[in-house]
Structures are given as structure tokens and as C-alpha cells.
């Protein structure tokens, strides 16, 4: 099982380095021992979504770890602007290969913008999970919810432990 995990992680790393989950040169990133990129300055949920809080808006997407495990994203289902999301609740789904996977919001609030580019180019989630592949922007109703999310180091360790147990 350990060998399979190592091979899987290595395959993921190769796939990521080939397709290039792009990160801006201005965004600091941590080199993760789980071979997926984890960015500083973001917060992370245990269901592998990231959130970037700037002013009154929180931008949300799925992590590099998640997109690597899901495979090629072929369809994205997003909510409408103006709808409400709840912390831990589903707001949409991504389809990859044969699977739909729910995407959950790390925070509660009102959706103020959705990434309409994902309709025509769902693969942005694979190639640029932290930038062009963002999914929704939310006006948080309880900004303190962010405090219970993981920071980059904690999330990196979380991914390693999750992969090590399987």
C-alpha cells in the first residue's frame, strides 16, 4: 500500500509539473511534501477547498491536492449570484472522469460573483486551481469562521496524513 501511495504521489507530481498548476510569481507558495502546491496567505478546509479573504470578499476554489485526485475536470456546476452558502455546505459540483464531486463552502455568506469562465473552460480548475480556476466569491456573514480553517502548514500536514492512511 505504501509503494502504491508513493507511486500515486509521484504520478501526481509528474502530472502537476507537466500540466503546470500555475501560480503567480508574486504569490508565495510552500513546497509540499505531498507533492501538491499549497499557497501561503490562504486558508483551507478539510474537504480541500481554499479561501482567500480580502476586505469584504472571500474567494473560494478547490486545492491543487483536490484537482490532482479528481482528474480532468470536464464540467462545473456553480450557484447563482445572490444565493446563500453555509459553512461546510455544498454550493456546487465538479465533474471529472465519471464522477461528480460536491464542492463545499468554507464560510457562510452571500455569493457575489461566480467564475463564468469555468463554463467554457472547466480545465482551469486543473491548470490554475488557485487563480484562474477560482469558483465563487462570497461576502462572508461571519468572518470569524475563517479562524477555524487550516493554515498552509496545517493543511500540508493534513494532506500528508490523509494520503499516508490510504
Amino acid at each position, binding site marked *: 500500500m505504501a509503494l502504491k501511495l508513493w507511486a500515486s504521489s509521484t504520478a501526481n507530481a509528474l502530472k502537476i509539473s507537466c500540466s503546470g498548476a500555475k501560480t503567480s510569481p508574486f504569490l508565495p507558495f510552500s513546497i509540499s511534501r505531498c507533492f501538491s502546491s499549497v499557497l501561503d496567505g490562504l486558508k483551507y478546509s478539510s474537504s480541500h477547498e481554499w479561501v482567500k479573504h480580502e476586505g469584504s470578499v472571500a474567494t473560494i476554489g478547490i486545492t491543487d491536492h483536490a484537482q490532482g485526485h479528481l482528474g480532468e475536470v470536464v464540467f462545473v456546476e456553480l450557484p447563482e449570484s445572490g444565493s446563500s452558502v453555509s459553512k461546510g455546505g*455544498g454550493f456546487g459540483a465538479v465533474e471529472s472522469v465519471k464522477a461528480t*464531486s460536491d464542492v463545499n463552502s468554507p464560510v457562510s455568506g452571500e455569493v457575489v460573483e461566480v467564475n463564468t469562465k469555468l463554463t467554457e473552460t472547466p480545465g482551469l480548475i486543473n491548470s490554475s486551481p488557485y487563480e484562474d480556476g477560482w469558483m465563487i466569491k462570497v461576502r462572508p456573514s461571519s468572518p470569524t469562521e475563517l479562524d477555524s480553517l487550516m493554515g498552509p502548514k496545517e493543511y500540508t500536514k493534513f494532506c500528508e496524513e490523509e494520503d499516508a492512511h490510504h
Partner: protein
Amino acid sequence: MILHRVRDGLPLMNLVSLRAVPILQQLHLEERLLRSSSDNWCIINDGTNRPNIVMGISGRPSELIDLKSVLRDRVPVIRRFSGGGTVIVDDGTIFVTFICNKDAIPGLQPYPHPLMSWTGQLYKDVLHGFGDFHLQENDYAIGSRKFGGNAQSITKNRWVHHTSFLWDYDIKNMEYLKIPSRAPKYRSARPHVEFLCRMTEYVPSRSTFIERTIASLGNHFSVKPIHQDRVIDPSNTLHSSSKLLTRQELEEAYSSLCEKLHIAAISV
């Protein structure tokens, strides 16, 4: 923390055995159990009552089905809640569905490829001695011919993996389906008749396959039969996103397609 039920050291799995239940009703049941139960379930539906086309969540009728003949022959078209491709199902189809908590199977990550791999191994055991079973990309195949199509839906804490097995099929029905633009490499652009095979040519009987599937499940779960009356509730469509497309939707898709192709839409 959620405590899951265990018997004899194995997690419990409820088994619901159905016969010829309409596929839309089966899909509604599955989605309800996925989203509102915390138990593990196996649903086996031996055939469905009439031919239905079933597309995945993002399926576009104009790309996947021959709209003119589907409208002419009034074949029902369903969009299901899981991902994946398009199938036409009928009484020659055997459906097997697993609905599980994400930690039900030790060491199994709730992502598409691990789930596909685990189920592939389960069916390899089921079909041992009956044919050269392979998990070909994401299909179950004997040699290079597909006999089972798979789809999944994964939530935060649970997952569904469901399969439609081609026990037998009518080649005329396959003609309602276009060859999809997104197809596995091993298909090599083969038409349906060269790409598919029938389980009835390899396995002695439907009951052999079903009984061996249940036995194989017993290696991983403590299987408990549940009578369908305890779960089937046709009036309960809570949590159901699988839906039957209306004739109007299909007609609009057909008209748009004809416009795009600059051909006249023939009234069907």
C-alpha cells in the same frame, strides 16, 4: 463523530434487491440514500421496466443522442445525478450500486480512481473463471469489449458508485446513442456493435452474477437484506436532482441542432 454500525468486525451494508424497478425511481432512491442516510447500501435492480436513455449530469442531448429517432419513438431521456456518459438501459440491464461512507473501506480514498480500482477488483473476483475481465480505463470489459458502464457521485462524507451491466441488449436500441466525442482511448472509434459485449455469453445466469456479487461484498461488509418496501417511496423526491427531460426540452434541442447544421427540422 459519527459511529457507524459494525457486525462481526465488518461494517454493515444494507442490501436492497429489486426487480424491474423504473430507472428514474432507482436513481431517486440512490440520491436520497446518499444524502440522507448514514448507512452503507447496495442496491441491485435486475432489469428495468422499459428502455430509457440515461445521460450523466452534464449530458447535452444534441451531442449524445439521435434526437430525431428518440423523439419519433418517444424514448424517455433522463439526466442523472452522477457523472459519466450515456447509456440506454432496459430489461437486459443489471444495475448494481454501492453507497458508502467515506471511511467504510479501510485504506480507500473517496476519489474517482481509487473507487474505480476497488470496484474493479471486486468484480474481478465475481467474474473469476467466466471471462478475461479487465478494468479498461473506467469501464468493465471482457478483453477489449465493454460490458459495464460506471458513474460516481462523491459528497463530503459519502460516495456512490453505480454500474449498468449489459447482461443482454438490443442492438437497435444502441442506435439511439451517438458515438461520444469524449470516449476512452481503448474504444478506438469502434461502433457500438464492435465495442460492447453481452454478459450472457460468458456467465451462466443473471442469478449467478448477482449471487456472486453479494458473496464478494461479504468479504468487505456484513450484508443485511432489507425489503424494498422499507426504502422505496416513489412520492419522495427530496434530494432528487435526476430528472426526466420533457418532450419540449428535447424538441428545443433538436430545433437548435438543425439550425446549427442549417437543415430543416422534420416534425416528429
